[in-house]
């Protein structure tokens, strides 16, 4: 949550001479982050108060008029469309060189001397929103009438006349520090952060009312820890004085009326939400704090009708609900200009209840934001006293009654404080006195007993400070993290090693990239359509309870749908490619978190030559195996609907299934809208990890020459390589290798047959082979081929 804090207001409570920029820097380094600085004095440069001397119609435009405006040293013509423009009106004149927002838009533009429809115009008469006061009520096409607001002379600087030569800090208040959502709390922080004197508020304690017993309060819900109310009679509700309106406006709030403004002002000053009721709307002068009752309805201030229930705390009178506690008041019990007696409420509600209620009814407010963060019941008397003080000052009322229901007053929190522990956790030698000084200035009360410190936590930090450990932060941040040295750990290194599965994952990615595959990286969240298009039942995938959209409803149990989606997206732009993805998939388990399995998918799309592609992919996996000490076995797969059953193998290691390599079945290819064949290998890396090792096999380089002979053999189309080479290798021990050099089908080859050129490698470990020996071996090879696979030698 953020607060827009006025530097002028802050400076009333902390003495400092720092420039706004320096203040922001020091404050950010020790307290909370100043996210931006808005220099109003600069923003209002060249904007002055003008007095309209005469108004004449524009000769060329029906909706425009020409005002002669006294801007001090002279009168200038300004073309203006303001419908409320009148003689003797005090107006805001933005002169050339100033910055304005046209019609309250988002961008600031610099004004220039101009002609509007042929008439010279020196500057612009502004509506509030055009100089940044968006929250000031002002009719459409009306300009800001300052006549009643200020009596500054014509030509006076706007910023000076309206006391706006200020700087606004937009500060991010961390959720543990709702106390800093008030100017006083911020100033207390600032006093330590920028080393200036803190000036507390001077509100006197609440006096006793003159007619005690006028208001009755019944507390019937323990989720309200304390309820205070003050009745002020004889108020005149109208427009607040400018100084008060201005503070609300600069903080981004909209002035409403004297009483509402006072409540909001107190919240801004002290960080304690307040509410105000019109006493006349409260039946039997009785306020009941109770759980909502099912069936009750309440129309809120913003017009929304909410059905109440026991989840929420309700402020009611003897007859009806008046407000949803801590969140928003009802429309009918608020103050109006007719109000003469007002009841200010300052109360403490359970943070969790407020939070749940706000979520349940989908109503947010500044008050709810503060309550959610955790406030203190001890803050109420001051806040209520401040509201009453302002009401008597501004609205002319008189306090008649104060009620305080606080069944179980809180005891202050006290924790032990050990400066030595602070030093060791920070790693810097910060003296006891420095530490104590910081804590004291922040409002902590330190008692010393036999060399030990007991620290009492101030009420405004009760929720935040949970134990002794929290004092370290107070000292450290105010000492300044930027003042501490940076030291590399010199302690013993860990005995644990990198997780091997992560190492191997990285290694595998590099291996695949080295082999020419490019990496896809897809969202783990997929849609029902993705799963179904790949024939996976969504029931087998982990479903999300609160998905972001219909596209992202399940955690993928397989990478293939993501890869196919990516292929489909790429095919028109990159017609063929080698790709891979390596990621964990999530396999649901009943009543448990899912099993996370590292999977690898690599392959080629846009395939033209199926055989060559298959061989490349298989070769990649074989090379992968060779590098990691794994021997894969490939067996033809003919019974899996996901794959092309003529072009696919199952992959096993010692009989254990670890993956599939082949062509994606055409049904699934077309269901994803892919035009050309896709060949993929899907491998369960998780199963491989325990076996993987960096494999370096040494084999002596042959001492004697190897001989290679090629023979072309006519074979049946379905005779597999493995069979052929098995025969060749088994023919004679001198045969050390056999590979397919070329496979030819076509002219001269009968249908159903293929011509395979086989390269046979021969070698003896102890001698150079004679050509007679080689010829003998080849004769045996040819005979064996004829005998076992019906191979016919071609000429």
């Amino acid at each position, binding site marked *: 949550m953020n607060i827009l804090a006025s530097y002028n207001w802050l400076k009333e409570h902390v003495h400092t001479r720092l420039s706004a920029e320096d203040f922001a820097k020091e404050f950010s380094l020790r307290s909370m982050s100043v996210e931006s600085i808005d220099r109003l004095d600069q923003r209002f440069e060249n904007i002055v108060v003008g007095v309209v001397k005469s108004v004449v119609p524009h000769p060329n435009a029906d909706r425009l008029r020409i005002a002669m405006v006294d801007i001090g040293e002279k009168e200038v013509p300004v073309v203006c469309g303001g419908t409320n423009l009148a003689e003797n009106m005090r107006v805001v004149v933005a002169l050339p060189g100033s910055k304005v927002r046209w019609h309250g838009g988002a961008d600031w533009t610099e004004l220039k001397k101009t002609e509007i429809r042929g008439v010279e115009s020196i500057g612009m008469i502004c509506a509030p929103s055009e100089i940044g006061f968006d929250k000031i009520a002002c009719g459409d096409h009306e300009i800001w009438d300052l006549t009643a607001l200020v009596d500054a002379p014509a030509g006076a600087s706007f910023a000076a006349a309206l006391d706006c030569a200020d700087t606004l800090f937009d500060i991010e208040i961390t959720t543990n520090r709702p106390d800093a959502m008030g100017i006083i709390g911020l100033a207390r922080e600032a006093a330590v952060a920028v080393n200036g004197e803190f000036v507390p508020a001077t509100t006197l304690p609440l006096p006793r009312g003159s007619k005690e017993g006028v208001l009755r309060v019944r507390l019937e819900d323990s989720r309200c820890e304390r309820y205070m109310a003050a009745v002020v009679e004889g108020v005149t509700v109208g427009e607040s004085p400018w100084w008060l309106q201005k503070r609300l406006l600069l903080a981004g709030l909209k002035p409403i009326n004297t009483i509402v403004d006072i409540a909001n002002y107190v919240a801004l000053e002290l960080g304690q939400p307040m509410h105000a009721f019109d006493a006349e709307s409260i039946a039997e002068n009785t306020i009941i704090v109770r759980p909502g009752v099912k069936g009750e309805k309440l129309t809120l201030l913003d017009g929304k009708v909410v059905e109440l229930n026991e989840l929420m705390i309700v402020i009611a009178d003897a007859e009806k609900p008046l407000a949803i506690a801590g969140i928003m008041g009802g429309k009918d019990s608020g103050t109006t200009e007719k109000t003469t007696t007002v009841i200010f409420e300052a109360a403490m509600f359970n943070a969790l209840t407020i939070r749940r209620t706000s979520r349940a009814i989908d109503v947010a407010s500044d008050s709810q934001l503060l309550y*959610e963060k955790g406030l203190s019941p001890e803050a109420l008397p001051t806040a209520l006293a401040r509201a009453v003080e302002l009401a008597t000052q501004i609205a002319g009322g008189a306090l008649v009654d104060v009620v305080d229901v606080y069944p179980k007053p809180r005891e202050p929190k006290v924790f032990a404080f050990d400066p030595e522990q602070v030093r060791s956790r920070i790693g810097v030698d910060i003296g006891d006195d420095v530490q104590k000084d910081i804590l004291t200035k922040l409002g902590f009360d330190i008692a010393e007993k036999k060399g030990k410190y007991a620290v009492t936590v101030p009420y405004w930090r009760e929720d935040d400070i949970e134990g002794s450990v929290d004092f370290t932060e107070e000292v450290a941040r105010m000492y300044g993290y930027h003042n501490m040295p940076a030291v590399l750990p010199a302690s013993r290194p860990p005995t644990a090693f990198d997780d091997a599965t992560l190492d191997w994952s990285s290694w595998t990615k590099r291996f695949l990239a080295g082999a020419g595959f490019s990496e896809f990286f897809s969202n783990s969240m997929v849609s029902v359509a993705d799963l179904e298009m790949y024939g996976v039942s969504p029931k087998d995938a982990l479903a999300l309870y609160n998905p972001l959209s219909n596209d992202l409803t399940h*955690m993928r149990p397989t990478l293939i749908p993501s890869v196919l989606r990516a292929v489909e997206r790429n095919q028109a732009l990159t017609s063929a490619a080698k790709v891979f993805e390596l990621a964990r998939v999530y396999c649901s388990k009943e009543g448990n978190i899912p099993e996370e399995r590292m999977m690898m998918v690599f392959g080629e799309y846009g395939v033209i030559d199926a055989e060559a592609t298959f061989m490349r992919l298989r070769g990649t996996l074989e090379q992968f195996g060779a590098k990691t000490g794994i021997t894969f076995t490939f067996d033809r797969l003919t019974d899996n609907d996901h794959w092309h059953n003529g072009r696919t193998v199952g992959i096993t290691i010692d009989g254990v299934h670890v993956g599939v390599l082949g062509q994606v079945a055409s049904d699934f290819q077309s269901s994803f809208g892919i035009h050309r064949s896709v060949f993929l290998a899907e491998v369960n890396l998780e199963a491989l990890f325990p076996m993987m090792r960096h494999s370096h096999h040494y084999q002596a380089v042959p001492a004697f020459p190897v001989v290679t002979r090629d023979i072309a053999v006519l074979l049946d189309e379905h005779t597999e390589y493995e069979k052929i080479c098995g025969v060749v290798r088994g023919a004679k021990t001198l045969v050390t290798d056999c590979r397919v050099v070329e496979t030819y089908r076509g002219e001269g080859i009968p249908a159903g047959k293929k011509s395979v050129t086989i390269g046979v490698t021969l070698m003896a470990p102890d001698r150079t082979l004679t050509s007679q020996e080689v010829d003998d071996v080849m004769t045996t090879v040819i005979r064996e081929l004829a005998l076992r696979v019906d191979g016919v030698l071609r000429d």
Partner: protein
Amino acid sequence: MQDVLLQLQKEALDVFLKVQTPEELEAARVEYLGRKGRLAEAMKDLAALDVDARRDAGKIANDVKRTVEASFAATEARIVESAAEDRQAQEWLDVSLPGVVPAVGHLHLTTQAIDEISDIFAHIGFVRSRHPEVDWDYYAFESLNMPKEHPARDEWETFFAEDEGEIALGEKGKIVLTPHTSNGQVREMEKGVLPIRMINIGKCYRRQASARHLPMFHQFEGLMVDTNVSVTELKGVFDYFVKRYFGANRETRLRPYHFRFTEPSFELDISCAVCDGTGKVDGVKCKLCKGGWLELGGAGMVHPNVLKAGGLDPDVYTGFAFGWGVERTMMMRSGINIDDIRTLYKNDLRFLSQF
């Protein structure tokens, strides 16, 4: 005799001078310097002279031979050179042809960043751990000092697993997609192997989707636990990482912040490279940073309650932890200016093959 020899020398030198091709050169060599060449023939005539005349003429004859041989050598060199020149003129290459790029694959930017980040931390003894990406809310929140219903949980817009229309429940609470890698903290401590210097890099999920926020992104979580770990060491580690990853000229700073699972907590800033940490470029406010600083991520000293949840005695052990977005960190350095972070995971090969 003498005149004959000198005449022969003059003739030979003239011929060599005019030679243009290797063939002419060979013919000239045979004619003058060959075994039956004219010089050899002339030498034979020396035998007919008397001793004195033979000595004088022999000396001249040797001089002539050397001179002619030298001339031949020079001519040969000239011919070889000119032949090479001719060949180069014929073997001209169009060197303006574009390079043919080898068919290498491309690792995803995120993979590259993860590898690089792991490497840097490995140098200072941090080892990579693996922890679940879908986990119990106990590890994502409760064990991190965020009790059930704590409002701080709202800051992480968390996805929950579903089971028959309800939030999936099990022995350790609800099942969530980890909204941060901090779920690895207590899990790492539970292993009971100390000291800990861990880097946990994993996928995280949050209910957000915009040009700056992805529903799936990566974080790297650092955790160091030992006796006497202090804030200054966190500063040291942070400084080391930033200088290695972003450059030695980058400055770092810690700023107070609030997280439930660390105490004290801070945000880590690095100086902006665009404005060199000044906050201004040519007198105008820097568009990239806030006052010269860029926010990198959160960190802090491990909260005693978190150590306790991990089975460690907070009076004996202290530690620090940090968690930053991988994509954010990578974008802050890369200078590739991807204006929409969603581009990263669109799997467009035209994008992927650029890295």
